């Protein structure tokens, strides 16, 4: 029976469009490799106060790399609070932090769902750990603060992520961006923090070639390299020289024992560089 209550589409079936692969595919697969020095991070754009209705907000964008089809990470963060906890929650003498990270459905090559999946919850937990070390929690009893980050564009090279499944390394870059932008938004919201915390990623990569040795680079783009052996994401407080969160993933060669600490050191250096941008952005926001 025909459905007369609704406005219906065409009665027959439709064929979904199938898009041709990019013509420049061989070029991307060969890749030019990394065009920055091993200790240089990508340029960032950071601005606070972009969402007037929230207590604090910030927007972060990484620069595009030169290749077609690869554009930088774009994050938007809003902070709501300090606000009263719901009646049912128990008394808390310090502030209750909740961090939510969500990829927009259009953010990555593989379309994401509308509900948070376990990887996004994992990012949220890491972010909460990173920020908990920076917030002075007992100045705000019985309150809660909500940090909501929306990843508008993920950090992925379209072709590579489909073929190599390198999503984890992109998540590390996303986490370090989330830490930096959340720190800016918290300062914008007027929540007492011990220091500005910034995130940095360092990775042990192996480039194509017979005798290339693994080297350590910061702020890696996974498609630049043949293989990423291991990476770590650090949340670092520069004034206090403290690490609030360390996320390490990968398979390091067992021969070199100092490689782990070397990676962490480089990650801290990347954090310091990101913190410089953060400090400058907050300085502009204050004046």
């Amino acid at each position, binding site marked *: 029976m025909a459905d007369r209550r609704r406005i219906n589409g065409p009665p027959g079936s439709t064929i979904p469009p199938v898009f041709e692969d990019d013509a420049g595919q061989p070029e991307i697969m060969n890749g030019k490799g990394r065009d920055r020095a091993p200790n240089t991070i990508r340029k960032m754009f950071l601005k606070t106060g972009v969402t007037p209705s929230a207590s604090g907000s910030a927007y972060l964008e990484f620069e595009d790399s030169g290749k077609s089809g690869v554009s930088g990470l774009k994050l938007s963060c809003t902070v709501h*609070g300090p606000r009263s906890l719901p009646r049912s929650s128990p008394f808390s003498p310090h502030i209750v932090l909740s961090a939510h990270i969500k990829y927009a459905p259009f953010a990555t090559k593989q379309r994401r769902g509308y509900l948070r999946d376990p990887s996004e919850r994992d990012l949220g937990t890491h972010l909460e750990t990173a920020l908990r070390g920076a917030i002075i929690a007992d100045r705000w009893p019985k309150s809660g603060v909500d940090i909501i980050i929306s990843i508008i564009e993920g950090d992925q090279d379209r072709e590579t992520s489909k073929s190599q499944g390198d999503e984890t390394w992109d998540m590390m870059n996303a986490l370090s961006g989330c830490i930096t932008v959340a720190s800016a938004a918290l300062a914008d919201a007027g929540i007492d923090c011990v220091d500005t915390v910034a995130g940095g990623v360092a990775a042990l990569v192996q480039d194509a070639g017979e005798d290339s040795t693994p080297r350590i680079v910061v702020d890696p783009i996974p498609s630049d390299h043949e293989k990423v052996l291991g990476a770590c994401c650090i949340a670092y407080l520069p004034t*206090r020289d403290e690490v609030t969160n360390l996320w390490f993933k990968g398979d390091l060669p067992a021969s070199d024992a100092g490689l782990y600490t070397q990676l962490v050191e480089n990650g801290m250096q990347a954090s310091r560089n990101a913190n410089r941008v953060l400090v400058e952005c907050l300085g502009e926001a*204050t004046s």
Partner: protein
Amino acid sequence: MTTSNPTLAIPGQLLGSTSKYQPGPGTHIHNHNVHASLMGTVHIAQPAKAPGPVKRLTKITPAPAPAELPTISVAVPTRSAGPDHASQKKREVLPEVGNVVLCRVIRITPRQAVVAILVCGDTVLDAEWQGLIRVQDVRATEKDRVKIYESFRPGDIVRAEVISLGDQANYYLSTARNELGVILATSEAGNAMHPVSWKEYRDSETGLTELRKVAKPY
């Protein structure tokens, strides 16, 4: 050590040493140094003048208080009433013990009055904090003979003082001073009322009086 005082601060910025400054709001201490906790402008408040030299040698005076150091603080501009302020940033304030707040009575029971805290100090609050005025905190005298129905009614605006952080849901408030109590009340007929004594409001139109715990207007 900074030789010149910075005027703008971001969290974590070094402001001075604890031997030179006392930490005020918006700062914290780390390793004998005062660091900023907020993003804002730095203010230095000079202390009150130290007392002069002791005249009597035999008089015992307390040791000089550490309040002789200037207080350094970081302030974020709060939401002000005037629309012509360039930076209309709102900053949330938490009711603290000792603050005088304005609240609206939501419901009354024979033992307490439940209120919603609206304004803390000078800042209109964004969050909804709930408060409780217990029957023993309504007045300073004759606490056992207080009747909540004769002190507050739902809908009244009350000026009260925070006496405790309370439990998970409520702050505890008190109106046990002359200048605390109901400042705005509506009569049962629906008209505005004006105060006539410490316990009565009179309806301006009908002339009937109703019992409230009235705040001293001046």
